[in-house]
């Protein structure tokens, strides 16, 4: 069986063994068994405890091997030191999936980590999958079964939720019962020794009971696998993620929590973007979106109709729509006629539709149903404020009915108020209409649903461009650097690599004597630039290690000696390989192209405004390699530099095609050579359309051994 088939067994088991079942109330082994029984699981339940006997009316087996029938899933709740032999027993019994709730593995240090490795080996050996260890368990509301020690079972719904934090789940579960949010699957990821977020995303993707995927993660196990899984699933259903550890201090806390260095937050952001995943900034946002999605279909577009009984909230909502990328719908003339006829003359019949403070449930019915029927409207937000004549509960009931008539269009209610809104909210919840207390949250959630449809549609099956390059030459250069026991390439080496990948570079040659420097300058043509060639000297200009605009052989000779002298004075310990002689490139628009290898996601390409203002302007954007041409175009368009390159205020446009090609070639280079861990072209001069670019300063660092 492959992994996904095994997860399917985990989701829909016919029999479950609870290893470590206990009759003592308050013990996890008791909670898990009770939850399982109370959840209405229709399959067989086998409590296992070496003491035997009977627990909660079920016969207890002493070990898994004693069970006569098949066991699909085993939930393990025994002390860590007993887990390995029990897993082995399960393997021999032919158990398909294990839920290891037991803690005391990777999170406690080296010994735990070793034990966890053995767990994974056993899983491989016996063709099982393992959820956890150190997790809360798993709940499937449609099987139904609850194999967790949660203090309740969520109501049935269409949201699949996986969380790296078990404690967070218990809080959400309890809250969801109050908010009437239903779940299809509730998975605690634990230490992710075997099954990780990517496995579950893929499984949720093909699970018919789930239409919406929510994730709370602190890190991903395998960045590439995660992206692949998301790309597969996003066309079918939306994935919303809260990824913590955004702030520096948060990242630090996360790294000591998980014991592994998470990739940079930028990399996560880019990975989510490139694989169509929506990132929510907070748990509140995540569940606002879930709240709407649980009940509603996706909007067909971004045009919103607003129905209100007060002006102020209507304007607030309009503003929020604008800033979240939603459009205020232009109603059809027919709709406007209907509204004019049905509403008092003082009412506003253009969107936002203000039915006035006197609006009765029938007025709301007219407005809402007209809006829902209007072909220019993709979704409707209904605002109700408690005024003297307002019948809040009646209005709520009307909305429930209207939604039933037009189930295809999202309808979101905002009932602003406190005590007077308690009962109407219950009515709306029961009627599957998402309700919020303030408009901004409602608009945010609606906008996220719309954005998902955009992400989904923009995920194209585009091929990665391949250029003809001289791969062998690059391999030889890198080999030479390795032999020399260096990680930082000399300018001449880095430029040669760029050249081998067809990038237009300023030519660089290494000179080891002043005569050689003069010869090389004659060959390259004046003017030239001289730079100290030493991997130990990073900031060359600080120590007088660069001389530019050298016009004559005499100047070159002079500069050569001066640069060496400066290096000797300021950095006597640096190992000097000579002086680079470089042709002067004609000045163009300065851009920067860089690449840094992220721990989780691999090579991340950067593009932006270059030159000395890089750090000040911070006009940069990122994408993960390998990239498609659309990726590159978006990367460039993300920056202000991208606009500048198109030509502003009568300036001729720059050679954007050449920049795109350069970035794609870099993307190919860092994908072909995993040993390139850092690469920077700064500055890279972009010339007028048709005239190409010139990579002036290429820096490359290699890693690995």
């Amino acid at each position: 069986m492959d992994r996904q088939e095994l997860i399917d067994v985990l989701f829909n088991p016919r029999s479950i063994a609870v290893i470590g079942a206990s009759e003592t109330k308050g013990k996890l082994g008791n909670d898990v068994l009770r939850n399982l029984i109370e959840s209405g699981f229709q399959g067989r339940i086998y409590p296992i405890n070496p003491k035997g006997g009977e627990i909660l009316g079920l016969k207890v087996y002493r070990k898994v091997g004693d069970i006569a029938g098949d066991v699909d899933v085993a939930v393990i709740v025994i002390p860590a030191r007993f887990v390995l032999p029990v897993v082995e027993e399960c393997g021999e019994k032919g158990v398909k999936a294990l839920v290891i709730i037991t803690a005391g593995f990777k999170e406690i240090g080296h010994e735990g980590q070793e034990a966890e490795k053995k767990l994974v080996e056993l899983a491989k050996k016996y063709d099982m999958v393992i959820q956890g260890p150190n997790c809360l368990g798993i709940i499937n509301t449609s099987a139904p079964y609850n194999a967790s020690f949660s203090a309740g079972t969520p109501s049935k719904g269409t949201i699949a939720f996986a969380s790296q934090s078990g404690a967070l789940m218990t809080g959400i579960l309890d809250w969801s019962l109050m908010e009437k949010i239903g779940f299809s699957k509730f998975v605690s990821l634990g230490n992710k020794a075997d099954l990780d977020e990517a496995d579950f995303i893929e499984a949720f993707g093909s699970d018919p009971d789930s239409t919406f995927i929510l994730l709370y993660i602190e890190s991903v196990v395998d960045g590439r696998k995660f992206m692949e899984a998301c790309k597969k699933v996003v066309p079918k259903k939306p994935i919303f993620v809260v990824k913590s550890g955004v702030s520096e201090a948060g990242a630090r806390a996360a790294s000591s929590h998980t014991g592994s260095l998470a990739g940079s937050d930028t990399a996560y952001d880019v990975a989510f973007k490139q694989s169509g995943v929506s990132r929510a900034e907070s748990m509140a946002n995540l569940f606002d979106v879930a709240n709407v999605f649980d009940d509603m279909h996706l909007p067909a577009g971004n045009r919103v109709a607003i129905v209100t009984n007060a002006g102020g909230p209507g304007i607030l909502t309009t503003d929020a729509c604008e800033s979240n990328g939603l459009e205020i719908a232009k109603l059809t003339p027919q709709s406007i006629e209907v509204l004019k006829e049905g509403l008092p003359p003082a009412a506003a019949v253009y969107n936002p539709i203000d039915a006035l403070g006197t609006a009765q449930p029938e007025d709301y019915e007219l407005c809402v149903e007209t809006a829902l029927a209007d072909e220019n409207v993709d979704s409707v937000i209904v605002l109700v404020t408690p005024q003297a004549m307002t019948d809040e509960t009646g209005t709520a009931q009307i909305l429930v009915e209207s939604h039933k008539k037009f189930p295809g269009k999202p309808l979101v209610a905002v009932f602003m108020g406190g005590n007077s809104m308690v009962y109407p909210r219950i009515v709306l919840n029961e009627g599957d209409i998402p309700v919020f207390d303030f408009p901004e949250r409602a608009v945010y959630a609606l906008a996220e649903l719309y954005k998902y449809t955009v992400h989904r549609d923009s995920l194209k099956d585009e091929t990665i461009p391949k250029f003809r390059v001289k791969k062998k030459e690059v391999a030889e250069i890198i080999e030479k650097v390795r032999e020399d026991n260096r990680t930082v390439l000399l300018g001449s080496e880095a430029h040669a690599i760029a050249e081998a990948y067809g990038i237009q570079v300023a030519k660089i040659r290494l000179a080891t004597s002043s005569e050689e420097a003069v010869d090389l300058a004659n060959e390259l043509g004046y003017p030239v630039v001289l730079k100290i060639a030493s991997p130990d000297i990073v900031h060359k200009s600080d120590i007088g290690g660069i001389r530019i605009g050298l016009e004559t052989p005499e100047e070159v000779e002079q500069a050569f000696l001066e640069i060496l002298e400066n290096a000797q004075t300021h950095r006597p310990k640096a190992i000097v390989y000579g002086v680079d002689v470089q042709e002067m490139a004609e000045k163009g628009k300065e851009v920067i192209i860089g690449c840094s290898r992220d721990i989780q996601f691999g090579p991340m390409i950067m593009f932006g405004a270059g030159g000395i203002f890089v750090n000040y302007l911070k006009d940069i954007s990122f994408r993960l390699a390998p990239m498609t041409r659309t990726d590159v175009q978006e990367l460039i368009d993300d920056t202000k530099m991208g606009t500048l390159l198109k030509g502003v205020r009568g300036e001729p446009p720059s050679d954007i095609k050449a920049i795109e090609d350069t970035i794609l070639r870099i993307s190919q280079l860092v994908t072909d050579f995993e040993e390139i861990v850092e690469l920077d072209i700064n500055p890279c001069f972009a010339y007028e359309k048709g005239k190409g670019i010139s990579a002036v300063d290429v820096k490359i660092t290699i890693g690995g051994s």
Partner: protein
Amino acid sequence: MVKNIVITGDTITGKTLIALGIAAKLRTAGKEVGYFKPVGTKSFDHSTIDHDADEDAVVMKSVLELKSEVSCICPIIRTKSSYDEFLRAGHDKLLDQIMTCYTKLSSGKDIMLIEGTKAPWHLLHVGLSTAQIATKLEASVICLVNFPDITAIDDILLQREFFKSYGVEEITVVLNLVPPMLKGTIHNHIREFIEENGMHYGGAIYQNRELFSPSVREILRALDGQIITGEDHIDSVIVDQFMVGSMAPENALKWFRRAKHKAVITSGDRSDICLAAMETDTNLLILTGGMGPDIRTVSRAKELGIPIIMTAHDTYTTGQIVDNLVATVTPENKEKIALVERIIGEALNLSHLGI
């Protein structure tokens, strides 16, 4: 007949490195190699109350598996107790001591490697400079000359003058600490220059961090630290470069990637820096301020086999201390010896000496 080769030069560790390199080559060729250091300096680590010992002698005794006493491999130890410590003994007595030990050591050997004093002119005051001993033993001389830039050609000539004046005829020059940019110059010009001036060219040793890199044990000793994990690697792991980690981990990565075989100095409570460092080519974590790592850092280090040491010094002081560390070859450090044998062996070409 035993062939005597005197290795001389005004260097700190170069001569012993050359001796190790040559000895390895000869032993592979099946030759019996002896080692003799007539005059050494006192090593407090290896000396006992009764016997003063020279560290190089201890190392070579262990590497070459010599049976003789350390006190015979290096019979005369300069203690610097007074200016006339050797004058009082006198030339004849000292020479006698040297010759007695030499005879003992050289029996049954094909080649004797004789290491000179720190500078070749030392002990001129009793007529026992390296040049004078070389003449006495009718030895070939390998003269190690530091060559940081081309002005050192005069140093080469000075050495020649000195040895010729005491009657040494066969001089081989080996250049030391040569910056890589001079590779071409040496090959095309300096070699020729040496040969035109009546000497042999024996090779060049280029600036190489590995040769002078301290081991974890040496760093631990210098920092008066405590090892937390990785005791097994204390001698086998060497450190080429030191870096201080203090920035956010994703920025630190960029820097950490620039250096190989490095030690990262950071405070014990920066588990993010420790983890970032371990993602790159890091050989050692030095945790300062007396703050130990958290359990997950230790667990990752164990997994990767990276030693962690902890010191009570602050980060700045730690940096200063390690910056001045120059590694020596110690008998415990087998890996380092193998490395020296390889690098020096490759750098030397002494075929004219039959090596």
